[in-house]
């Protein structure tokens, strides 16, 4: 176990960082905000941590927290600025924001290292620290997926007008989504820089947008669990599929396209649907004998059916899941 842990340390750290990156895209998506700002925060956080460590010689944890403060501040302002946008307009505006971070980094001169980037960002970052950040993030997000908060978030996503009419402050929820994605993205970026000891403009380009999108779409958009599934698959897949090599991006792109067309709920959506189907069939099977014996009871069973259909939905509501139907 320990041997396995040590030989795969880079991949384990990478999984947690990718989880945070995927979450930075998924959280606004779950709030009904189609924003790529979290990926921009990934770049901002990565550079902020590098500059803090190189110029102020702070510790890794301080650098990460500092990066998160910067990421939150930038995304908060951005969230205020683009508050009146929605849908595709918001998506494109935030993609433009994300892509511009690299332009700013290239023009940053000495401080950002220009085209080459920054090297030798050395700070001690144990894996348990990365894990602790991720656990706190997941715990907070899990709360927003259940109970009253979960239902409000769902209402803000599915029908903002309805949500506003029943007293949910939609604007505030959307701003919270921006701030959360800034914090998550910046944390992921800072950790990524510290683990790899380097950051450059090419690390925060369009490729990272596609990677985050891939993890979120393939894993599932409705719960942190989906982001985790995506992060695990796309951190470990490249090392398993070595033969894919240079075609990695092609495989990712094809998977995203196929998932967008055929399973918009992601793997998590497919799994929950499958689980529900199984439960439904089991209930029918247990009733099957009575149907043959007594037709009146069969009618009663049929009348019961809607309730039986609802039961898995209620289960799902408890775990923060939602049907795609």
């Amino acid at each position, binding site marked *: 176990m320990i041997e396995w842990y040590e030989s795969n340390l880079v991949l384990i750290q990478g999984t947690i960082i990718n989880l945070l990156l995927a979450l930075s895209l998924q959280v606004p998506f779950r709030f009904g905000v189609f924003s790529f700002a979290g990926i921009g925060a990934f770049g901002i956080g990565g550079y902020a941590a590098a500059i803090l460590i190189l110029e102020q010689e702070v510790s890794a944890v301080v650098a990460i927290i500092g990066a998160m403060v910067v990421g939150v501040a930038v995304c908060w302002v951005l969230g205020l*600025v683009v508050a009146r946008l929605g849908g595709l307009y918001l998506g494109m505006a935030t993609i433009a924001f994300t892509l511009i971070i690299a332009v700013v980094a290239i023009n940053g001169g000495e401080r950002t290292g220009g085209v080459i980037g920054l090297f030798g960002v050395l700070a001690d970052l144990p894996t348990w620290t990365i894990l602790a950040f991720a656990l706190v993030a997941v715990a907070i997000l899990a709360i927003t997926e259940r109970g009253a908060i979960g239902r409000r978030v769902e209402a803000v996503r599915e029908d903002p007008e309805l949500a506003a009419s029943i007293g949910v402050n939609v604007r505030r929820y959307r701003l919270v989504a921006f701030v959360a994605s800034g914090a998550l993205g910046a944390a992921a970026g800072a950790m990524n820089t510290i683990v790899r000891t380097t950051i450059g403009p090419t690390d925060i380009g369009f490729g990272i947008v596609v990677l985050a999108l891939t993890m979120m779409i393939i894993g599932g958009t409705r719960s942190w669990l989906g982001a985790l599934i995506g992060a695990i698959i796309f951190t470990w897949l490249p090392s398993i599929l070595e033969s894919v090599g240079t*075609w990695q991006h092609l495989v990712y792109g094809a998977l995203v396209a196929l998932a967008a*067309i055929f399973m918009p709920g992601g793997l998590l959506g497919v799994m929950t649907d499958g689980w529900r189907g199984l439960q439904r069939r089991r209930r029918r099977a247990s009733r099957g004998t009575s149907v043959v014996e007594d037709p009146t009871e069969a009618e009663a069973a049929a009348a019961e059916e809607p309730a039986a259909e609802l039961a898995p939905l209620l289960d799902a509501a408890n775990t923060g899941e939602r049907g795609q139907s």
Partner: protein
Amino acid sequence: MLQDLVFAMSLGSIYLLFALGMSLVWGTIGILNFAHGVIFMFAAFVAYLISQEVTLGLPLLVLIGIAVGALMSVGIQLLAFEPILRRAKDFRTAELQILIGGIGVATIPLAIAQHETKSNPFGITTSFDSQTYEVFGVRISTTQIIIIVAAVVFSAALAIWLRRSRHGLALRAIGVDSETSSLMGANRARLAIGAMGLSGGLAGLAGVLLTLNLGAITPESGDALLVTAFAAVILGGVGSVLGVVVGSYALAMIETWVLVNTSGTWVAAVSFGIIFLVLLFRPQGLFGHAEVRRT
């Protein structure tokens, strides 16, 4: 100064050819095609592959570009966007899935081109000989003249077609209200294929012409152009042909001005700034209608 103007005009014409198709499908059938940039690049790439085997003249290269662009665009519409629209529960989710699917689809031709060229710039060898003329001390090449003329002719033709023809009317009707127009006999699926084909053809034409003008382009150049074209469409107003024309040339002028007057590589920031300013202060664009849905 005049030399910069010529540069801005040919740059703006490339933006225009590229953005016209993007604005057409977005403003009518509501598809923001993220693969548009890669269609542009791949059309030039196919022309490059063919030019490695046989040396062709300009007309044939242009036709290849248009054909490849149109075929790719129609293929993406049939294989990706139409299935998404059919399966999605409402148009809002479909829009986002189409954007995501487009990003996914776009990586496939990009990866192929990057693999073949090892991410190096590629150029098209042609028998066409571009002359450079000097008028009042301003240099202008044949390719630049062709680009500017093509942009003006195609946007005028598109504007007239949308205004005057029955298909144009049907497309515009779909842009206003898809359901009602289908009740009145507009075949959405067929018109969508036509619009996507037209849009892809224009992108392919722009790809071949830009490659001939610059000498070579990189496989990644489509991505940058996509954001620029988005800025041009937003600035002019989605769905308005006049808007795209004004947006493209205005953007090219501003970019040229920034290029001449600043040292760094801040040009890439211009489109970003424009997207932001326009969306904040005039979200419908210069020539758009205020009632167009934004959320």
